[in-house]
């Protein structure tokens, strides 16, 4: 009975509201009562809808701009022992809205499939993710000038922790450094330069290069931290490389995320990037104790992503895409925009706000939107 009534309203009401009604229905509600409730909610929903012409973009800009002045510049956020150091506050908001290619603290939250998400297993999995360079497992790099050899002493305990053996270590090394001849000793690896005219200088350079050679784990992940989230354990990382992490089979691909928007866009697509922008902004706003409705963030995120690529709120991004010459010119670098427009004979149709302000004309928003159209007498 009641299901039918609900079905009727499915078209008229958003799903979230219907779900909330279902959750809050009084226990002994009969069909008539349910209908009455739905009617009342629907009436209120219709009443709360936006009027046409509302300048929602400016509303969002104001909401964020006004509250932004109250946010702290607090760059770092320590919440006790077990959290990562992440850029927060206004700098992070600016970073997101600028759509910076390299962010100051890239981070991933890796969710693990059972049974890896239990306390005993996380630590080991976390270590598998962490990027290990040769210098991390070595105790010493010895340069033998006489034989033009570098001897690397390896800490076997550390190797064992990483599930590696000396044999496959030397294998990965020789793969990474093609110009080297790699030999294996009991506790060390000996690298010899094959080049004929090798000199001392190149040997030392080689030593530095060897130190930074990638051995295991995922490139870019500099720190890992297993953390408890609800009933399971997850891995937080400093440094982000989503593509590589998602390739691991024991990773929960649905929930694992990164805070690097470009990386999300590259691996999961623009819709995911849009969602990430909203989430990341929300995170900062919540941490700062600000009150901004999510709809404002959606608008911002959508304007940044409509073109199919991420565009920052800068003179090179969103503003550069505007159709009006004068709107672009009034933001920044006016001369550049005016010159560019004159070369193509660009026409400004005066459809947006600022040009009409400049010309003392009615702005096509809100009460300025309706126009009279008269029929011509024939």
């Amino acid at each position, binding site marked *: 009975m009641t299901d039918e009534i609900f079905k009727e309203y499915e078209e008229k009401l*958003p799903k979230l509201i219907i779900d*909330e009604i279902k959750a*809050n229905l009084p226990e002994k509600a009969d069909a008539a009562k349910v209908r009455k*409730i739905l009617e*009342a*909610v629907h009436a*209120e929903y219709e009443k*709360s809808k*936006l*009027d046409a012409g*509302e*300048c*929602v*973009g400016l509303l969002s*800009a*104001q*909401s*964020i*701009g*006004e*509250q*932004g002045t109250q946010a702290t510049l607090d760059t770092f956020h320590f919440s*006790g*022992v*077990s959290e990562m150091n992440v850029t927060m506050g*206004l700098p992070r908001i600016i970073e997101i809205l600028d759509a910076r290619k390299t962010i100051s603290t890239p981070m991933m939250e890796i969710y693990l499939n059972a049974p890896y998400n239990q306390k005993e297993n996380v*630590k080991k999995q976390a270590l598998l993710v962490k990027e290990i360079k040769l210098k991390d497992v070595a105790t010493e790099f010895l340069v033998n000038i006489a034989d033009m050899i570098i001897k690397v002493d390896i800490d076997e305990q550390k190797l064992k922790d990483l599930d590696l053996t000396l044999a496959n270590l030397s294998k990965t090394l020789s793969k990474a450094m093609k110009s080297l001849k790699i030999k294996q000793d009991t506790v060390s690896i000996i690298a010899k330069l094959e080049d004929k005219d090798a000199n001392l200088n190149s040997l030392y350079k080689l030593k530095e290069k060897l130190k930074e050679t990638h051995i295991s784990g995922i490139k870019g992940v500099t*720190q890992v931290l*297993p953390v408890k989230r609800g009933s399971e354990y997850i891995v937080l990382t400093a440094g982000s490389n989503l593509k590589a992490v998602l390739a691991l089979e024991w990773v929960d691909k649905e929930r694992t995320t990164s805070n690097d928007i470009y990386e999300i866009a590259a691996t999961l697509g623009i819709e995911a990037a849009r969602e990430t922008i909203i989430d990341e902004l929300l995170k900062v706003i919540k941490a700062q104790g600000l*009150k901004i*409705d*999510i*709809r404002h963030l959606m*608008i*911002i995120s*959508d*304007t940044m992503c*409509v073109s199919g690529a991420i565009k920052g*709120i*800068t003179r090179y*991004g969103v503003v550069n895409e*505007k*159709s009006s010459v*004068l*709107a672009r010119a*009034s*933001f920044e670098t006016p001369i550049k925009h005016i*010159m560019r*427009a*004159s*070369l*193509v*004979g*660009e026409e*400004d149709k005066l*459809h947006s*706000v600022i*040009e009409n*302000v400049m010309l003392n004309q009615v702005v096509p*928003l809100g009460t300025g939107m309706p126009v009279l159209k008269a029929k011509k007498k024939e």
Partner: protein
Amino acid sequence: MEEYVYKKVSSIVFGLLSPKVVKKMSAVKVVTPELYDKEGYPVDGGLMDTRMGVIDPGLRCKTCGSKIKECVGHFGYIELARPVININLVSLISTLLKFTCRECGKILIPKVKADKIIESLAAADKEVGLEKRRKIVKHVITSLKTTNKCPHCKARQLKITIEKPTTFLENEKRITPIEIRARLEKISDEDCELFGLNPKYARPEWAVQTILPIPPVTIRPSITLESGERSEDDLTHKLGDIVRINQRLFENINAGAPEIIIEDLWDLLQYHVTTFYNNEVAQLPPARHRSGQPLKTLAERIKSKEGRIRYNLAGKRTNFSARTVISPDPMIGLNEVGIPLIMAMKLTVPERVTAWNINYLKAFVQKGSDKYPGANYVIRPDGKKKKITEEMKEQILEEIQPGYIIERHLMDGDISVFNRQPSLHRMSMMCHKIKVLPGRTLRLNPSVCHPYNADFDGDEMNLHIPQTEEARAEAEILMEVPTQLISPAFGLSIMGCIQDSISGNFLLARDPEIKKEIAVKLLVDSGITDFSRLPSKKTISGRDVFSMLLPDDFNFSAHSKLCKKGPEAECKDANHIVIKDGKLLQGTLDSANLGKGAGLLLRNLHQKYGQEFAVDFLAKVAKLGVNYLFHKGFTVGISDMDLPDDANQKIENALEESTITIRELISACADRTLEAFPGKTIEETLELKIIETLNNVRNKTGNIVAEYSTKLTPTVIMARSGARGSVLTLGQMTACIGQQVLRGKRIDKGYKGRTLSAFRAGDLTESARGFVKYGYKRGTTPAEYFFAAMTGRDSLMDTALRTPKSGYLYRRLSNAMQDIKVDYDGTVRDASNKIIQFSYGEDGVDVSRSVGGKIDVKRIIQNLK
């Protein structure tokens, strides 16, 4: 009646000026650098020629015959002796020279390929906007490579480089602008398209100028100094230089001077023309005044915040506005603004005389401009404005008839727009009704301070009087204070009781009995006139007094500040607010329900009884709170900070305990027995543990203070009710200020290994790293005082740095999104009609009509019961 012709600009096309157009639009050919003759009149053919407009009163423009202010000015031109490169188009010239054949002038790509690109450009033109076209052009230009041989005429190509700013070299040999122009002329119209040019508006050769337009005199007026001397505008100076050099160059060429001299002069002409356009070209020394200050030429006039676009075009100035200091007046309404009489007599409202109001309006004229309420001006139907003076009064009175407009003084109830900068959101400009008051400040109700972010420590605010019926109607319907009650940022009331009105209501709700006379007085003072619902007892409880403000069919329940959080319906706390049938049955009134930006009490009243009621309710509640405090008395003293001895002892013990723990931790670290956290060194772990201990002790002392502050001293009342301060700040005053945090760490800056020379190097104890042990009342040690000053300075810096940053962020956001609007079909679109969202926020709900961003389903269901 007068007739109006409304004209609207429907579009603006941008383009380059061709020499032909320049000549056609010019009124004069400028030939001499002289400005004025001996008598001080502008010279014919000079830069101040009256055919280019007039700036002196009394003179008439020779082109259009009108006087100063009426004549908009006319262009002139100079014939340049030798062509000169336009600095703004250097990059264009460079690409054109590099990628067209030096012999045949064709683009250096094979014909087949070029045809293909033209086709794709034609396809791109079918789309709205120039974005696609621009992309293709950009792609073409970046993909072009220097080829040695022209694919069309097989001529060998030489390497072209620019020597900045305006010199072009071909194989290290200079190409003169004449030659450049000759080459650009050869480029065909079709090839122009490939370079992204529209030959109709921008032929390549126009980038090399043979003729220079001279801007009208009216945009470069000269100023007459007190001494009678004339001081010319920067542009006139620059143009003078150009004309002078041009003349010399011309004479030298005619006289057959050596090539070197001509070239030098040519370069000089190029320099002057370049700086005329832009005086901030990187490689050129800016042209200067004799005083050494750089000239402000065309580009600098347009650019930046003080430039034409942002300062004059996008920024407007208004008449009929006022500004002074603000001060509070809790007794006026929220949607009122108190203005001083002097302002009311200077600011006016235009009212049109009709047959019905003629006598009413004549009365104002009768009073004149010196008596209130009078009128200052009369505007005749032909637009002539007349000042009302004592002498003119009688005459004006006689002549007034329907159609006249009378500018009368402001009166109570007139519409105004009130504003405080920075205007960060739309609630920074709201419509208030005028209320003329004695005094010299603008008055506003303290409850509307929050949306303006105003306080009364010397803040000034602006007042505008809308002058047309349309403007007044929009202001009243869209901008009035009641319409702005619910914030569009988060969907809750942005206005609320503040400070005294909160603590007043807090105390009122706890008062078990108030004498009836006093209760009635309180209510009358707060604007209540109907006492039918007042219990007819001798003494009335404070809650009943408060209930008088509520409508009698209002039901509500909510957590108060002190309730333990949890499901609302099951809250058994005595502080929990329950309102049934318009009676406050139980609960504490505090900032959680009365305050700004929080609580559903106001939101629900707004929803059920409308915005006018909600604002009226808020005003009454605020008044009631203040009035109750008037009746009771309320003051803060140092004795509020006193604690009993055993509390002091407890605090002492807690501090002692933490000191010991820290000692232990440090020594554990020293002999390496401390267990490190994963991924951290022992030292880092120690630091974290110390911070944890210190945080704990601050909380502990705070709790002790809270525990002992059961006596309701005024300070405690303020903290409990949320009127001002918190239990934390109370703890800081009485017990312990706590750790000073600098950049997210304990203080560790200063000397090597220590913070101050009073400490030992490497000292990690709490006192050496910025822990302030006692409260403000007991005072700080010199070292502690210094640490507190450090963090104080740091937070000052933080604010100073944050404001411009967030200001710029706001500017960018608003510029990027200002034209995004909801269309009639409910989609969200931008100016070019591109759809941004199909439904605003995925459900189309206006945040300022929602309850905290949601539809309050629970309440609807409850109300239906």
